[in-house]
């Protein structure tokens, strides 16, 4: 008997717990929702929303991301499946964007290409951003000879033909996607370092940083709490714009035969490989071209939007007038 009751109790208590968890979850959900709603109406979001172009940019980028994530579900064919007998066929119901010189489905390759291009973009921009920020902050905050040395290094890399570096790296390590990414990142971080250093130099002089120094706050903490958050705005914007540049650079490298390894579907390589078919089978080149354009457009518009939102000046100029 005791067993039974205990079992019943247990069941009941579990039920209770589940219910309360449900309630909690629901209230959490409600909270999240109201927070989302609040966020939707918050100033930055409103400002972002107020420009149609920003919203278009966001939609494009989200579309790209979703495409990349759900590529296997979206693509009608295997992107690497060849069908030489059906090569270079124009758009049809079976192949909405036609087939390429190997009879691969252009649409499917574009869809999977979004993965590759986004991966390159994110990785290159991520690495550049990390290195650039670290170097920029170090140079800007440490100043003196450290600054001088690091900046000369940046100059050296800027004066060095970036293409050569990419070629050499591709040469040393073989022209793989990873190596292209490394090469682009090695060239790419310098601009971040410059931007970050510039911002750090000005943020360093801000009174809130001085105030914090006078409280005895450690250097690292000042960098983490005060300097970084205030320099990241322009950097994030730069990063979204850079995504576009990176995608294009890959296309350029592919033209020189240093792009992604076949049969990886990568937009830049698709264009440069299809360039012989520019006239006989326009879809082979022009659709990847449009995809790149679309992505570049999306990232640039998003970057512009973020600039509007992240640039505190915009809001301050209104605020100051209200003081």
């Amino acid at each position, binding site marked *: 008997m005791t067993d039974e009751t205990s079992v019943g109790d247990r069941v009941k208590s579990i039920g209770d717990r589940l219910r309360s968890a449900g309630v909690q979850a629901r209230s959490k959900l409600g909270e999240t929702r109201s927070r989302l709603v609040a966020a939707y109406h918050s100033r930055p979001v409103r400002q972002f929303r107020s420009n149609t172009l920003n919203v278009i940019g966001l939609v494009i980028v989200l579309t790209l991301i979703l495409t990349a994530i759900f590529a296997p579900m979206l693509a009608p064919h295997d992107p*690497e499946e*060849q069908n*030489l*007998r059906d*090569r*270079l066929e124009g758009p049809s119901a079976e192949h909405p964007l036609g087939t390429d*010189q*190997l*009879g691969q489905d252009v649409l499917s390759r574009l869809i999977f290409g979004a993965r590759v291009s986004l991966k390159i973009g994110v990785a290159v921009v991520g690495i550049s951003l990390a290195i650039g920020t670290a170097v920029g902050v170090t140079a800007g905050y440490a100043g003196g000879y450290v600054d001088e040395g690091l900046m000369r290094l940046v100059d050296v890399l800027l004066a060095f033909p970036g293409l050569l570096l990419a*070629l050499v790296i*591709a*040469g040393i390590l*073989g*022209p*793989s996607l990873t190596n292209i990414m490394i090469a682009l990142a090695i060239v790419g971080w310098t601009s971040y370092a410059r931007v970050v250093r510039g911002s750090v130099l000005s943020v360093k002089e801000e009174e809130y940083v001085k105030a914090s120094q006078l409280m005895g706050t450690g250097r690292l903490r000042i960098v983490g709490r005060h300097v970084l958050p205030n320099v990241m705005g322009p950097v994030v914007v730069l990063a979204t714009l850079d995504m576009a540049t990176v995608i294009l650079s890959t296309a350029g490298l592919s033209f020189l*035969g*240093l792009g992604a*390894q*076949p*049969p990886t579907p990568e937009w830049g390589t698709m264009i440069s*490989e299809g*360039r*012989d*078919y*520019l*006239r*006989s*089978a326009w879809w082979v080149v022009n659709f990847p071209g449009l995809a790149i354009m679309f992505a570049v457009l999306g990232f640039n518009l998003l970057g512009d939007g973020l600039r509007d939102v992240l640039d505190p000046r915009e809001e301050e100029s209104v605020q100051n007038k209200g003081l």
Partner: protein
Amino acid sequence: AENTSGNSSGVTIALNTDPTAEVWNSHGGITPYWTNVMEPLVWVNQEMDTEPWLATDWEQTGETTWEFDIREGVSFHNGDELTADHVVYSFETLLEELAYAPGWLRLEGPESIVAVDEYTVEFTTTEPFSVFPGNIAHNMVCIQHPDRNPDESRVIGTGPYQVDEVVAQQEVVTSAFDDYWNDSGKVDELVFEVIEDPNTRSLSLENDEIDIGMSPPRSQIESLENNDDVEVARQETAGSCYGGFNLYDAPTDDPVLRQALNHAVDQQLIVDTILENVGSAARVPISPTIYWSAHDQVDPYEYDEDTASSLVEESDYDGETLTIVVPNDLVNGRDIAQVLLDSFTSAGVEAEIQMAERAQYSELVRDGDGHLFVDTSGSNSGAADYVIYDSFHSDGDVNQRRYRNEETGVQNLGGEVDTLIEDGLQATESAVKEEKYVQAQERMKEQAVTVPVYYDEFVAAYQSGLEGVSFSPIPEFTSWTSLEK
């Protein structure tokens, strides 16, 4: 680089290589490829056979000595008459200025070329070298006048056309040479223009900027053929494209797997599709334009997916990924590699592609770093022997490094094949040479040393107003004298 096609008596030929690339010092400022400004002693004819040219006759006088009779009455573009001294001068210059020349020509030191009399030259090779005449039937081994001056781009040869103007990286303008010893060119002026990009080349042909465009993009050949204003010339060449297996690293050290992969590839389909019918399906790595090719003798691996799969089953293969290495300057190499990869995959073999730029590719091959090396090979001279020697003899360039260091190699079966190749090389009689080389090729086919892909064909497109366009199996050797507008 004015639009010269309007000129009624001139023909503009767009090359895909740059005859002015940097400066060809040893030849007075331009490469002797394509231009017909300078001529060799020995010519290669349409059948890939040697033919007297500036030399009227030659003879092996000893184990290592050759005597060449120089044609009389030939004038240089500056009016001087060709003599044996000029020949000696030209060879010595070559040996001095081009690091590779001594080893290639097997000529070393000043005593190796001697003017016996005004019209006879004696060559002494460093080793017995039966193919010497064919070997010097090459554009680079041409005769020029000592007054040539690379700094002023003053090129003085004996050819049907003489150089008027050289614009670096742009063009070489030549005009017909009235005192040419043979049939003179019918066109007054030939302009060799550089357009390295194939699309630009064919676009400028359509735009009437040029009269002849070499190697248009394959994808455009069909539309060019359908274009009434344009004609397309084709010529089989000594070139072929094949993938050579790494015979010494697993899993391609297994002949069964190699055979399986040979069955997996449908050469005809490749030619029909991505090659747009340019070239023909290959059975052996040596183009049948070379008379000792075993193309007709071997019994090819038929394309058959089922056989391929079952052979893979039979083999020692257990799931490793093969690396297909392709140089990135190989025309359509990327597509061919992908088709190979797809064929292998269908047969149940995993593979990946590694594109490498040329310099890196040659390191990869020599290090045996990869499983299948896809490339073209061919000959630019009348002696095509090195095509087989370099790739398949243990001491050939491809295999030498690994052979000497590790006693292995890359594409060399070694043993009997080495001997057959050596014998073929030393043979002076065509029949003997053919026999030895064919045997070597048969051994290689049995062991599936390569996956032959296609035999190359040279294509050029030209304005339909032109007549007398014909190319040599070594296209760079083409004579332009028959050209008419």
